[in-house]
């Protein structure tokens, strides 16, 4: 990519500037585009828009679809094959979860400061609840990262661990003594949460990726079963294919190997397992599949918010702030649920490229 970054082009229309910003954001967030690619693409788009004298939206289409097209055709398969639905590697997924947890905790401490004043009382129950939420959220992050790495069984174990921690924590709070142990200033708590965020950001994503990714099944490992197991995990975990569909692909690949003369291994015939999984999964139904997966996640969050709201309402002296916050959050989640359900069932939501098999010219066939 370009080593010397050119100055950003000056767009003549405000709508074109918005279009360019949308393309740049989508490339960065959804596709983890390599440095310099967005600059290069937008410089070309700017020149074309300038020469044609038409708005970028008319000329080049929806920015989301255009970013997808750029990603499919210009980002090498080897890079794209490592990413999940949100353009994150497993290590980045864990980091993102921990950062989200830190931001939420910081905001919570800020609200407590505004509501109850500078000093926050800490008791056994609040300690137990904090430990439960922190450990549960961290384990959820690990479960999501493990799933994105294609390790379905591992993800299930971590998800079970999350459920176990939450159940133990919630039931444990009933047995801890009441009363306050000590008080701490809210800003100190916020500082601790902020330090946690910094710590999460500093985590080496590459090392985390290596930790989550199983030993290569496609280099010296001659065991085809390991290759097929890895393909199954990647299709279901990273690319959100239904189990039956993933099994169908594996059955077909096995059949092909059985038909082929000689003793060729799966890795010789189908190549790098991560790239093969990407190729099988990046068809027109990709958007619907990921929307369906997000819908299930949103269902769980909606249930959690509903429980929080019921807890608020059953309180004899409910806090108006938390009641309003929970109601607003629940309303927003229901709106998101409807939107995601529509997207997951919309037959017209297809690959924006609308082209044939999109593979990078530099990737092996």
């Amino acid at each position, binding site marked *: 990519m370009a080593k010397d970054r050119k100055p950003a082009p000056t767009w003549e229309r405000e709508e074109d500037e918005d279009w360019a910003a949308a393309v740049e954001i989508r490339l960065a967030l959804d596709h983890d585009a390599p440095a310099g690619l967005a600059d290069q*693409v937008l410089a*070309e*788009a700017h*020149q*074309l*828009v300038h*020469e044609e004298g038409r708005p970028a939206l008319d*000329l*080049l289409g929806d920015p989301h679809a*255009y970013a997808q*097209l*750029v990603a499919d*055709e*210009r980002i090498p398969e080897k890079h794209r094959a490592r990413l999940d639905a949100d353009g994150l590697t497993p290590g980045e997924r864990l980091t993102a979860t921990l950062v989200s947890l830190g931001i939420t905790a910081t905001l919570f401490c800020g609200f407590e400061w505004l509501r109850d004043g500078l000093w926050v009382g800490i008791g056994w129950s609040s300690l137990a609840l904090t430990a439960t939420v922190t450990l549960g959220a961290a384990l959820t992050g690990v479960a999501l990262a493990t799933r994105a790495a294609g390790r379905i069984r591992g993800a299930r174990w971590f998800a079970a661990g999350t459920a176990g921690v939450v159940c133990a924590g919630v039931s444990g709070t009933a047995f801890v003594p009441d009363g306050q142990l000590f008080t701490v200033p809210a800003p100190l708590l916020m500082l601790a949460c902020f330090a946690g965020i910094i710590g999460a950001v500093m985590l080496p994503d590459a090392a985390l990726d290596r930790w989550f990714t199983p030993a290569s099944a496609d280099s010296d490992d001659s065991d085809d079963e390991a290759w097929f197991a890895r393909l199954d995990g990647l299709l279901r975990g990273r690319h959100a294919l239904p189990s039956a569909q993933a099994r*169908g*692909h594996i*059955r*077909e*690949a*096995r*059949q*092909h190997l*059985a*038909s*082929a003369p000689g003793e060729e291994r799966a890795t010789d*015939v*189908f*190549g790098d397992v991560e*790239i*093969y999984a990407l*190729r*099988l999964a*990046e*068809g*027109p*139904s990709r958007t619907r599949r990921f929307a369906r997966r997000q819908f299930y996640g949103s269902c769980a969050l909606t249930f959690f918010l509903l429980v929080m709201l019921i807890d608020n309402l059953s309180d004899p002296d409910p806090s108006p702030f938390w009641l309003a916050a929970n109601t607003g959050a629940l309303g927003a989640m229901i709106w998101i649920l409807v939107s995601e359900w529509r997207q997951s069932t919309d037959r017209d939501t297809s690959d924006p490229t609308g082209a*044939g*098999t999109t*593979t990078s*010219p*530099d990737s*092996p*066939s």
Partner: protein
Amino acid sequence: MATGTTHTTWTRAALPLCLLGVLATEEKSYGYALLSRLADAGLDGVKAATLYPALTRLEEEGAVETEWGAGEGGPGRKYYRITDEGRARLHRDRAAWAAFTGAVASLTRTDEPSTAGPSAHTSAHPGE
């Protein structure tokens, strides 16, 4: 760009059309047989790693439908059959391909060196 890479890119671009063309001549077929047909026709650069994703995409686009049948001593075999939508697409794409190859031929037919300078236009299409 190396010639081999160029040919690989061309093959991939034309692969869905070729697969529909082969399937239109047969009641149904399966991956390994399709690969053999392509190789017999001269497209021996197509590998299984490219073929099955292309077939999967055609299935998702509704151009082919699939069914599982008995294999020969191995796991079940997945058969592909062209749909009416696939036949319509084949007719459309065949005409478009003919127009495209005609245009390329008209541009590459002459042996005279071009006197025009290089175009200053830089395409914004990401594939170019």
